[in-house]
């Protein structure tokens, strides 16, 4: 298994990032303080500084990045230019941040809520260890989590 640690983003580049990351109504939309913007402000953790997240892309490529405590997998992906849609911006109204987790990490998580399951039911390629990336918050226990991007986030039937 190849793992690549991502170089942390310097603080100067982060300031650009905030001005260009225009997402109106973050707060109004019910975002917790643990949103992407907040993390962007304090920069990315360097190798070994945060918790490891290993994304497996659709073509099998593995990308290893670092996450802050409490950061969602969707935020981690966005912050590292990993193309997960997240169309509803973590408001549990779509399934476009569907990820397939390694069974070990999956079992460490609390059960998905009914609302998350409702959306997972619309996800393409649903598996027994599927979760919405916006609902999985990183912590020490999940250090080293493997999250596979499904081949397509699509609801074929609804």
């Amino acid at each position: 298994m190849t793992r690549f640690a991502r170089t942390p983003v310097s603080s100067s580049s982060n300031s650009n990032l905030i001005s260009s990351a225009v997402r109106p109504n973050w707060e109004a939309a019910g975002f917790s303080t643990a949103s992407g913007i907040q993390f962007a402000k304090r920069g990315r953790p360097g190798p070994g500084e945060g918790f490891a997240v290993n994304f497996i892309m659709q073509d099998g490529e593995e990308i290893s990045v670092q996450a802050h405590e409490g950061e969602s997998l969707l935020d981690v992906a966005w912050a590292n230019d990993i193309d997960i849609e997240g169309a509803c911006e973590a408001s549990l109204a779509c399934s476009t941040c569907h990820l397939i987790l390694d069974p070990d990490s999956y079992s460490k998580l609390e059960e998905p809520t009914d609302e998350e399951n409702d959306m997972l039911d619309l996800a393409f390629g649903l598996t027994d260890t599927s979760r919405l990336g916006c609902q999985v918050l990183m912590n020490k226990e999940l250090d080293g989590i493997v999250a596979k991007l499904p081949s397509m986030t699509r609801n074929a039937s609804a």
Partner: protein
Amino acid sequence: MIRLSLLTRGQPLSQARCSIPTPSTRRTFTPSLLNNNIRSFSTAWTLRNASTESVADPAKPFKVAVIGSGPGGFYAAHRILKHVPQSSIDMFEALPVPHGLVRFGVAPDHPEVKNVMHTFDEVAENPNFTFIGNTSVGTYVTPGSKKADLEISDLRPHYDAILLAYGAHEDRLLGVPNEQSLKGVMAARSFVGFYNGLPEEQDLEVDLSKAETAVVIGQGNVALDVARILLTPLEELKKTDLTERMIKILEKSRVKHVHVVGRRGPLEVAFTAKELREMLQLPDTTFHMDQGLLASEMERSGKTLDRPRKRLMGLLEKGIKESKPDQPKSWSLQFLRSPLGFSGDGDNQLKAIELGINRLEGESSNRKAVATGEKETLACDLAFRSIGYKSVGIQGIPFDERKGVVPNLDGKVVDAEQNIVPGFYASGWLKRGPIGVIATTMADAYQTADTMISDFTSGKAMLNDDTSSKEGGKPLLELLKSKGHKTVSYKDWKKIEQKECELGAKVGKPREKFLTVEEMLKVLD
């Protein structure tokens, strides 16, 4: 997109992804996104090929016109702009306001679904993107249709490709007596358009002050949206962008019972868990359905149900079990019922619907409704037909009347003989029919965009060859101006939107929509 903006130029990237940052090769992500869901292996393969090489001559422009500004158009535009930096896109919209069914279809009490508009706003900020609102393209083939501001033939010389994404404009009829002549019978589509502020539906006669019982024919999410709007406490709806006009009507509403009728059984419902859950959580509302039918159908299906269906059926079971009897309001799911006709009183007002009773035949995966010959009459004051939308053909474009879509292969328009029509593409409901949530449309808009990108990069025939000067929207805007026609830019739309938000803020709503084109345009004077 936020993801792209997060990518800092010049930042050292991991070796595995070192090809990302330069704009000319930034089509980067996920060619294999195209795996399972793309019907044609060849398209997936050619795109993969195309995308592993650099995009065609960066000096060669790719001029695209998109007809329609809903998710089908915007997501395709998003993808093309991301992967073909030299592309430029003009998006035409008949109304002054963009976003199609995100604005006019998504229920007002589902504001979180409307977050996709932020992505559309970001697309519109791209300097290579131009929104041309208040400008219809392509007259509908239906006799008597209003002439469009521009025809496809006007656009054709100026672009490499035209993407048709104008959606599904009409509703399907039941084909039974009196469905269009009685007061109180209407299309769910019209009702949804009415309460969401769609200008063309504002003349709809909606009177809930004398109605106690409503029937919705059809068991999809639109049917449940209609039922929910009728039964949700008004205080809740007042916090949404439901139009003030509709709120006034709901203030006088006497609707207490809503029956949601389908011709087949519980396993065949088309609505999804979120919408059902919301119905089951309505306060002061009893839920009825045939528990025996649910049990027998579930038993019959054995273990063959997939997880979503299993959860949905579980939710129905729970709904029956936990339903509080004798609440002031109620709703029901009625199965095995096909409408045979509507009847009214002397004032031409709906009074009842006649239903034919069906039985189910065939495999669990493909149950068919067969008429038993028995009938029943259900008294009602309102009826909404909600059995689907359909697209309408426009002049100069192939159209499949039976399926109600533009015939296409992975988004590439074909004629009746399956011959490719170079340079024409389709996306969204016009492409695959009126089904699916926004994520479904997103995936299929991406598929169409990928087909377009692949065709462009591999040098396939487009609308015009490389020798002709394709000027995009500029000559068209001049033409429209010379005719005295007012177009609306995205910046203009943002002004309209700001005004709507200001008006909404005064009454504690996210926005108060303008109900007429005139009011929208007046903001820009």
